[in-house]
């Protein structure tokens, strides 16, 4: 089956964008994603458990992320933990979203709306 075009997912809902970014550098479980998002945004964005797993369910169906069959952390003893990884499509979608956001900032800068950015 042909992979869908990344642009067809844009603009991304904020929760999906943050999850993609959190998974960009390493595989994570749900709570780790929450912590990463909170840390990266200085506590400004706090995903709730419902929003997180509803987004994860949708992203799994869309093929943006995948669930790992084994824990990437051999030291983890908690088998209930489920880990997620960015797929190739997920990465392309995240990049496309970043490009879209960059374009928006460029436009704002060109009109003097955001000179310092």
């Amino acid at each position, binding site marked *: 089956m042909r992979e869908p075009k990344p642009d067809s997912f844009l603009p991304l809902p904020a929760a999906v964008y943050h999850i993609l970014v959190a998974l960009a550098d390493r595989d994570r*479980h*749900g*709570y780790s994603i*929450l912590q990463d998002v909170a840390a990266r945004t200085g506590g400004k964005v*706090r995903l*709730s*458990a*419902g*929003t*997180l*797993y*509803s987004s*994860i*369910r*949708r992203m799994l169906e869309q093929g943006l992320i995948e669930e790992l069959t084994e824990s990437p952390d051999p030291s983890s003893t*908690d088998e*209930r*933990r*489920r880990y997620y990884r960015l797929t190739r499509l997920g990465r392309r979608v995240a990049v496309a979203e970043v490009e879209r956001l960059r374009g928006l900032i460029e436009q704002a800068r060109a009109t003097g709306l955001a000179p310092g950015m």
Partner: protein
Amino acid sequence: MSAAGVYKAGLYRALLRCYPAAFREEYGGEMLLVFSRQMREAGGLRERARIWMEAVHDAVTVAPREHWHVMMQDIRYALRGMAARPGFTAVAIISLALGIGANTAIFGIWNGLLHAPLPGVSHPEQLVILSSPDDDGMWHGNSTGERSLLTYEEFEDLRDHTRTLSAATASESSLDRWPVRFAGGGLEEVRGRLVAENYFEFFGVGARLGRVFAARDANSPHAVLSYAYWQRRFGGAPDVVGKTFTLRGAALTILGVASPGFIGETAAQQPDLWIPIRMQTQVAPGEDWLHDAPPSKTMWLHVFGRLKPGVAMARAEAEANAIFKAGLESFYGGVGSPERRRELLGQWLKLHPAANGASTTRGDFSTSLTVLLAAVGVLLLIACANLANLLLARGEMRRPEMALRISLGASRGGLVRQLVTESLVLAALGALGSLALARLLHGGLTRLIVQSDHTFHMEFRLDPLVLAFAGGVALAVGLLFGLLPAWQATRRDAASHLKEQGRSGTGRMRWGRPLVSLQLALSLPLLAGAGLLARTVYNLQHVDLGYPVDRLWELGIDSRIAGYNSVRSQALFRDLLERIRRIPGVQAVSFSHNGLFTGSNSGDPVEVEGYAPKNGDDKHSAWDIAGPDYFSTVGIPILLGRDIQASDDAAAPKVCVVNEAFAKHFFAGRNPIGLHVTAVDEAPRGVTRTIYQVVGVVKDAHTDGLRGKVERRYYVPFTQPQGDHVKRANFVIRSAGEHTPVLAAAQQIVQRADAGLPILYARSMPDQIAPNTATERATAQVAITFAAVALALAAIGLFGVLSYTVARRRSEFAIRIALGARPERVVAMVLRETGWLIAAGLALGAGLTYTASRWIASVLYGVAPQDPITLACAVALLVVVALAAVCLPAWRASKLDPMATLRQE
């Protein structure tokens, strides 16, 4: 975990119940972990409160989205499944669409005509009608007993003196057809009504354009158009206000257009325009319907009132009767015989609730529509049984799939939900189809009713009640017949399903067989009912009228409206008679006052020589005024004496011809020829007697209605009328050939004689009689259609169950054939089983038919409700169709290739 921790986890688990089960099973554990960890690491009370708030917020925002997602997934799956089985899907949707559509259409008309309040009227629940809502027309003369229609003076009395009604208004009881001419246009016909000047104010109806007339316009030549007519005739043009038109010489100005949706005070009629009642003398010149000159009254109005708050109907009725009787006292005074005066003063009014207005159609179609509503209810049951059968069969077919899915860990609840969703999607599509079908059926039904009542008009409207009905039925059917097979399909444990998989045993389908029998049973009363109605129509169309109707034509004119008095009318009719007789192809021509099947009739008390009446009714007889050679023209055999002749003129001795019923009643055993009949006109200001000598006796003939006995009647020459009755002529023309243009020629002659003479109608005799059978024809046509659909659905059901059974028993049949059973034997086996289904269905159906038949007894004619021939025909038809439906599955069973089948199994 601490006690508080356990408590919190329990509370969070409870919140998780808001999510769909599948989501909860997949992510519930993780979410609980996350929640617990967040709570553990929370800095303080405020942080913990925030986490709780988020959890609750998720439960009310995220959880519904997840439910929606699951539902959409189920619907997508259901649609894919339906597309994969187009035959099943089509039959299921069509069954349901037919069942609900037929019900919606009949229910819409039944409700609109019989029960729904008048559209566009404010506070219809306050309305009462002081006349009889089921009657219309116009009566000149006197009345006794309960009064059906009122005179204008009686209305004025009631309006001016009532204390229990906040207002009263009056309207012409029948819808008129008026010839009008708009400036620069040709002559066209409009349907209009004369109404009291407070009519619009009374009903709380405003103007969409211009204004409606009010008290100050009472004597102004104004008209108000209905919204529908404005749209149809003028395309909604705003410059219509102020336009003028002529109606029988009167020039009228359009004052405005009434609010959309308002049809007036009569249910299922759509007037084109309304004119103030005081314009009557101008729109019907030569007539005065507004003033009653003793001895006779002109009764033509419906009178409506609005009850004051807190006033009971009984009180308003008592007051109305007091006013009405005071009026009668002053009108009839102290004149007339005491007995007659007592009869005339004994009249009374009865108040009826009038939220749904007046309607004569209501009375005509009430029984038929109720019978049809019951019939479509049965049709819906059959459709539901069909759908249930299909869904049960599908459930059976999908058992292995369900077993596999359960064994792979799917929850039973999820599978049931998915199967029910599929049924609901089917039901929803069926309901949508039904609305389209209902619209089509509504159009067809309306056209059928119009054949019997040309003023009938009802727009197809999806009122909330009808929508709720269709939606409710679809939902109930979807849930009930979705849940049952779903429950069956997922009932047993996975292991036993899997063990059974691949082994086809005897057909399970425990529900299927009784359902098929039930379908057949329900079809039988519909078939028998349709058969009885069809025979009723046949009988009515073949009633021996007492004269041949072929080559007989009828043309009616009204000389009153054109301003003729009785003497001038006589001369006119004589002249027309001569001219029409000279038309090539005319064999004979004559005329009468009441004519044949015109809806007009006359009657009076008579005194018959040598006869002592037993009571007041006993001396009553119908009468007619006829032209020369009337009976030989119509073809009514003369049993004794002679026809009315041209020589029976004003100067000759007064003579009459009586019919058989008259002769039998008044002259039992005596020869009537030469005896005398006295027509008594018991006018309050004095009794007038006209004595006629009987010169002929004619065979009884149906001249007014098809049903019932021919009433006693006497005929007098038009040159020797009783009273002042020669104002209307219904010409009867007997032509030499079947298709001769005599009618067109006769119309031209009338127009040439006087262009202002209104031709009431011009038709062949069969066309003239047709409206008398229209109600029955309409009912029969609809009933036959529904019976055919019911039969088709039952046949589909039978075919489906048999096909399924044969498919399930392939291996058994294959083994039998392999062991030497001949194909005929296999066919016989299948047919034997079917025989039981059919027999059970017929036995139940016969019982239902017997019980239901008495409901339609009142609409039947010439056939008993339990007519054995009709029932036998219905049974035979049902058996033939049922056998045809099982032929294909039986043939398939006999044609199995044993080796191939067993290898496959």
